[in-house]
């Protein structure tokens, strides 16, 4: 890789790593795993760096790699084995985050509890602020499926949230 390419690659990492980490975390809910997924995604991209110069949307491409790697992880045996004991073993507590959480984040908590197919449409629609068609294209599902999942997700969130919080969400 030549210096300018190298600089371009560094630039890509600087631009997207924060964002991709968050997307990965919203899938796997584990920072260590999210970091590994983003590392692997950048490495996959790095290997094929030249082939993607003409890609219309690098961001979408990277997000898709991260989504696929996150889903592969969630399907993996390692994850399934952990799943049962995760009721007991949870991640390290960030003391700063404990303070932040003094502020109620019930909507965020409820979203993170949604099953993946429902959570991901909410994440891409509200968090990434994509349109229904863009979410459909990103996840390679039909726009009707996106709408159905959104409806089901909102229904579940309504059951979990208090009426005030639901009001906030309903107005989004």
């Amino acid at each position, binding site marked *: *890789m*030549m210096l300018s390419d190298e600089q371009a690659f*560094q630039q890509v*990492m600087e631009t997207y*790593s*924060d964002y991709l*980490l*968050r997307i990965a*975390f919203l899938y796997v809910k584990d920072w260590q795993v*999210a*970091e590994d997924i983003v*590392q692997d995604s*950048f*490495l*996959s991209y*790095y*290997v094929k760096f*030249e*082939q993607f110069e003409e890609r219309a949307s690098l961001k979408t491409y990277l997000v*898709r*790699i991260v989504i696929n*790697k996150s*889903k*592969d992880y*969630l*399907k993996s*045996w*390692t994850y*399934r*084995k952990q*799943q*049962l*004991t995760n009721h*007991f*073993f*949870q*991640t*390290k*507590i960030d*003391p*700063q*985050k404990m303070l*932040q*959480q003094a*502020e109620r*984040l019930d*909507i*965020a*908590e409820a*979203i993170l*509890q949604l*099953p*993946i*197919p429902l959570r991901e449409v909410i*994440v891409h629609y*509200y*968090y990434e*602020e994509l349109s229904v068609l863009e979410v459909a294209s990103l996840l390679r599902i039909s726009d009707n499926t996106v709408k159905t999942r959104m409806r089901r997700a909102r229904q579940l969130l309504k059951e979990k949230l208090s009426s005030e919080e639901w009001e906030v*969400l309903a107005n*989004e």
Partner: protein
Amino acid sequence: MNEIKRQLNKKMGSTSKRSEQVMAKVNVRKRQKQPFKKSNRLYYATFVIFLAMITLTILVMNPWSLNDFSQTTPTVPVDEEIKETIEELPLQKYFKEDGDVAYFLGMGNEYAGFTETTTWLSDEYVEILEDNTGAVMQKVYRIKTDAIELVYEEIMEFEKKSFTLTQLNQLDPIQTIIKLPVKDGFTFEGQAMSYPVKLITPYKEYDNLVQITKEIEGGKNYFYYDNGDGLVAKQFITNDGHEILSLLGSINELPTINKEKVISFKNTLNNTVEEIPFYQLTFLNQLLLYKYEADNFELTYEPLFTDKDTEIGVFKYNCLEQYCENAFVKRLGEDITFGSLVWGKLQSFKLSPNYENILMSITLDEYYEDTLLPRAMLHVLNIDKMEVNLPSSKQDYFTHPWYPIFHYEWIDDKTIQAEVPDIENYESPTIYKWRQTKQQKTKIIEVSLPY
């Protein structure tokens, strides 16, 4: 910014340090993974020549300065961030009270559960007896001003060994258990400390545990200590992923299992809802009995076939898209016998000609380079024994969904044939490449079952 985005951002906090770490690690790893580029060879050749010239120049200029040169080579900082000390807590509180009997519940092997009896021998020495029904282990710990040391550890033969204070003071430390300062990222004697760690045991929810990780032969040990309740959990994960787990269940009273609790599940055949005592579902982690949240747990049941009064079926749970944990069971009246547990999607099944074995195809596709790679495994369950009937050869096709499997059938009561890709290994690039080929050459494998 919408409220959902605001809350999710707030919940996740700042990721800038994580980003820096990711970039640093990518930069280290990518050196071993060069991008595909035609000019690579030329680039490497130039680089090697350049490097050789530099080395030569240095050798000629000052042959003794090689060490200095290597020391000035820049290194990429990885994982160097260590968080601040949170607080100092009295080391005595990492043990239970004198006379406490704690009951640990276990899974992974029959000795994972144990009883722990704590005796304070003096202000500085604590004796712990660990009885796992197989053996009693006597341990003595020394509490120093800055560390807790294990000073005695032996299997108790008939009665426990007694020590005078002088004898205790003369014991050499075997291992340091906890060392001050209690801070995240601190390492001592090859052990790593994490703090604070949250953990839920059947006894209590803990927020501020000290986790000590130690790599030993064959796997990793994790110990969890509470400043107040002492040891509350330990876990051993072998290098091949097997886990032995012990969790504090109760102190000074026997832990109880709620046998009354029932779980409801949907029978997909007739769309009815049935109920069953939870403890009968032995395929579920029994520890979940203590933390079972019915609202979050969806269980469905699908009968596969019935022979007289016996029904073979599958319980599905923890589903993610089309993939689920599949627990194959035999139902005879109200009795349920568990057979095997497989993660994936049950694609189809075929009974052996003598109806003694059931052969199933289970899929678990994978995304690779934006392409869906089909992967599947064959799974044979002996109906009478309700255990996996694993062939002694070609186990790769029977232990995990590694390969695409196109067709399978029974040749006789104990022989199976399957059509699979003609490839050397099941690595993703191999299957991906094979899918790109025009021919997609396949081969027939044949295996014999033990019974």
